[in-house]
C-alpha cells in the first residue's frame, strides 16, 4: 500500500460557513447544554460529590457541536479525558454522564470508569481515555475497522495540542495515511497542555502543518466559531467518506477553566481568559447570530430554561442513583466464557 500520491498540504479555499436558522438554534442549544452541564459538574465537584480528576470543557463547545453536525449514524467518536462535551454531543444522556461523575450505578460505566472513562456503543462513542495520546492510535484503529469492513463510516479522533507531541500520534498519522483510513484527526488546540503553553512545548506551533509529511490534507479552523467548525468538518468528513484517507483539522480553541479542577492557573493571566470570553465566546456569538436571524429573546430564554432543567435533572439523578453494589467490584474484568 503506497502513501497517498495527493500531496495537497491544505485545501485552497476555506469552505463556506453557513447554517440554517434551525440548525444554528439546535447547535446553540447543544453548546449551551455542555456549558451548563460543565458548570454544574464544577459545582458538584466543589461539594465533594464528584472526585478525582475532572476536566471541564467550558470554552471549547463549538468544536464538538460543529463536528457532530457532519456525522451520520454509524460514525464513531473517540477522545481524551476532557470528554464530557463529546459525550453530550453524541447524544449520550446527561443523566448517565453525570451519574458516572458521581460514581453511581446509573452512570454509563456503572460508576467504575469516572469522568475520564465513559463509553456508549449505541452512540458510537469509544471513550474517554486517560492516557494522553493513546486515543489517537485507538481512533486510527476504529477507522481501520471501517476500512476493513469497507463501509463508509468515519471516526472523529479528538486530542489536544499537548497530545499532538506524542510519538504514537505521528505513528497514527503515518498508518492512517498509508492505509487510507477514514479518520478525521482533530487537534483541539486550547493553547495550554496543563500548564505548558504551546510555545513552550512545540517547536512548530502551526499544528495543521503536521499533516504534510504524510500527504494528508489539513486545515486550521477557528474553533470558537461553530459555523466555521461545521464547514471545515463537512469537508474533512466528505474526504474520509470518499475513501481518500485521513484529514487533519487544527481547531484553535480555548478553555476558560483550569486543566482540571485542581489547577492554580498561574500560567496565564486572568485578563487573557477574560478577553477570550468577552470577544470569542462560541455561545455568545451564536446567540448574537440567532438574534440577527430574528430569533426572539423569549424563544432563547425558553431554550435556556429547558437546558437548565435538563442539567438539574441530571444532577438530581446523579445524586439519587445508588452507589454500585459491592459485587460490581469483581464484574467486567473479563468477558465470561
Amino acid at each position, binding site marked *: *500500500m503506497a502513501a497517498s500520491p495527493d500531496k495537497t498540504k491544505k485545501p485552497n479555499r476555506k469552505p463556506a460557513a453557513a447554517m440554517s436558522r434551525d440548525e444554528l438554534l439546535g447547535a446553540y442549544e447543544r453548546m449551551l447544554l455542555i456549558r451548563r452541564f460543565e458548570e454544574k459538574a464544577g459545582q458538584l465537584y466543589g461539594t465533594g460529590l464528584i472526585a478525582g480528576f475532572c476536566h471541564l470543557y467550558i470554552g471549547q463547545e463549538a468544536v464538538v457541536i460543529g463536528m457532530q453536525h457532519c456525522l451520520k449514524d454509524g460514525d*464513531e467518536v*473517540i477522545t481524551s479525558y476532557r470528554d464530557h462535551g463529546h459525550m453530550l454531543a453524541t447524544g449520550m444522556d446527561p443523566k448517565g454522564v453525570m451519574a458516572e461523575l458521581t460514581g453511581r450505578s446509573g*452512570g*454509563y*460505566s*456503572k*460508576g*467504575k*470508569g469516572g469522568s475520564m*472513562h*465513559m*463509553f*456508549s*456503543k449505541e452512540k458510537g462513542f*469509544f*471513550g*474517554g*481515555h*486517560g*492516557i494522553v495520546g*493513546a486515543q*489517537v*492510535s*485507538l*481512533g*486510527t*484503529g*476504529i*477507522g*481501520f*475497522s*471501517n476500512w*476493513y469492513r469497507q463501509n463508509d463510516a468515519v471516526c472523529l479522533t479528538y486530542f489536544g495540542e499537548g497530545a499532538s507531541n506524542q*510519538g*504514537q500520534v505521528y*505513528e*497514527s498519522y*503515518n*498508518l492512517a495515511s*498509508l492505509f487510507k483510513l477514514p479518520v478525521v484527526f482533530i487537534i483541539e488546540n486550547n493553547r495550554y497542555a496543563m500548564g505548558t503553553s504551546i510555545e513552550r512545548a512545540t517547536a512548530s506551533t502551526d499544528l495543521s502543518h503536521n499533516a504534510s509529511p504524510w500527504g494528508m490534507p489539513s486545515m486550521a479552523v477557528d474553533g470558537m466559531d461553530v459555523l466555521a467548525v461545521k464547514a471545515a468538518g463537512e469537508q474533512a468528513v466528505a474526504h474520509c467518506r470518499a475513501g481518500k484517507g485521513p484529514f487533519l483539522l487544527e481547531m484553535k480553541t480555548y478553555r476558560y477553566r483550569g486543566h482540571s479542577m485542581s489547577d492554580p492557573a498561574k500560567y496565564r493571566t486572568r485578563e487573557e481568559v477574560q478577553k477570550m470570553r468577552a470577544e470569542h465566546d462560541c455561545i455568545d456569538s451564536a446567540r448574537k447570530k440567532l438574534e440577527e436571524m430574528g430569533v426572539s429573546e423569549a424563544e432563547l430564554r425558553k431554550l435556556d430554561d429547558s437546558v437548565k432543567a435538563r442539567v438539574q435533572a441530571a444532577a438530581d439523578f446523579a445524586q439519587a442513583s445508588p452507589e454500585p453494589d459491592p459485587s460490581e467490584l469483581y*464484574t*467486567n*474484568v*473479563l*468477558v465470561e*466464557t
Partner: protein
Amino acid sequence: MTDILMPALSPTMTEGKLAKWLKDVGDEVKSGDILAEIETDKATMEVEAVDEGTLTEILVPEGSEGVAVNAVIARLNGDGEQTKEELKPGPQTSPTETPRTNAPAQQKRTNTTPKETVEKEWGKTRTMTVREALREAMVVEMRADKDVFLIGEEVAQYQGAYKISQGMLDEFGPRRVIDTPITEHGFTGMAVGAAMNGLKPILEFMTFNFAMQAIDQIINSAAKTLYMSGGQMGASIVFRGPNGAAARVAAQHSQCYASWYSHCPGLKVIAPWSAADAKGLLRAAIRDPNPVIFLEHEILYGHSFEVPEDEDFILPIGKAKVERRGSDVTIIAFSIMVDVALKAAEALADQGISAEVINLRTIRPLDVETIVESVKTTGRVVSVEEGWPFAGIGSEIIATVVEHCFDWLDAPPARVTGVDVPMPYAANLEKLALPQPGWVVDAVKKFF
C-alpha cells in the same frame, strides 16, 4: 587450503538446504563473490566468499537438505588462508557449547505426549512443527470468521519473520494479512481500536521484546476497557509472538514476559510448549472475547510433536497438562522449560526419583486445581521458568502451593529460574544464565 563452512543464517538455525552453487570447481573466487544459496524454513540467503582463491572441491552438492551448520561444504585453495577456527561463524562455535539450540537430536526429536491425562481424547494424530501448528490455527479460524485478521511487521509479503504466516497472504489477501511499518506503539493501538469496534485481530509482535513499546496500549487500553466501560466495550484480540531467550541475541532480545503480563487483571496469558498446545490454544485464544497474550518460543518453532487431526481440535484456556506422572516430586514448567523439566524427570528416574511434570500451558488464569492435586500427592514442588526470579511465575506458584496445600508439603517449595541478570551475549555466559536440566535435578535432590 581453506574450508568453507555451512553458515548459520539466524541465531537458532541448526541446519539448512544447500539450494544452489553459483561457483564451480576451478573457478576463481574473490572476497564478496556469491558462492551459493542456502535455504532454511525461514529464509533464502546467499553465501558470500570471505577469502580469495580457487575453488578446489565441492563437498556438498546442490539440493542437499539438512546440511548441519558448520559442516564443510567446499574447499578453497589460495593465499591468505585462515584457520578453521577463524572461519567459523560466530554464534555456532561448536554444537556442544550451545546444546539448547544446536543439538540436532533435539531439533529432530518427536516429543511423545503421555496419555495419562484427563483431557478429551482427540484420536488420530499427525506430526507437525509448532510453526505449522500456529499457522493452521490461524488459517482455520480466519476461514471460519471474517472478523479475524493478522497484522504485524513482515507477516504478509515477507511471509513472517519466523515464517509462521507463510502462505497466508495468498489465501486471505492484503486486507486480512496486513504488513505494518515498524511502529509498535501505533499499530498496537490501532489493532486494539479495531477490536473495540468488534474486529478480532491477531497481532504478531516480531518478538515480545518489541511489545514493550506498546505495553501501554496492551494494559491501559486492551486489558482495562471492559472494566472501565462497565462491560459495554472490550477487546477480543490476540497478541502473539516469540517470547523468552532465543540464542545469542543478548539482553534486549532475550527476556520472558510471562510475569509482566500475568500480573494484570483483564488479560489472559498463554504459553504453549508442544505443537498440540500451540494449535489448540491459539484457536481458543482467537475465539476468546478477551485480550490474550500468547507467548511462543522461537526455539520451539521448529520442534515436532503429535497433533490431533480432528478438525475441531481445540484446548481449553486455563487447563494445565500433566505431561509425565510421578509420585515423589512435582515439577511445574511452561513453554520451552517443559523440555528442561522432562529431561530432569528422566535423569531423576535413573536415580530412583519419580517426578511428575506439569505443563502449565496457561499462566493466567492459573490452573490451581491441577497444581494442588499434584502437590498433595507428591509433597514436593519445584517451579521452572526462563524468566527472572523476583516476582516471577515461580513466586506465584509457590505462594499458591503454600496457601492451598501447606500441610501436604514435605519440603519447602523450590524454584529454578533464569539468573537475575540481563542476558549476556557470550555463549558460555548465556548458558550459565538459563535453567538447565541439571539445575532442576539439583533442586529436587535437595529434598531427599
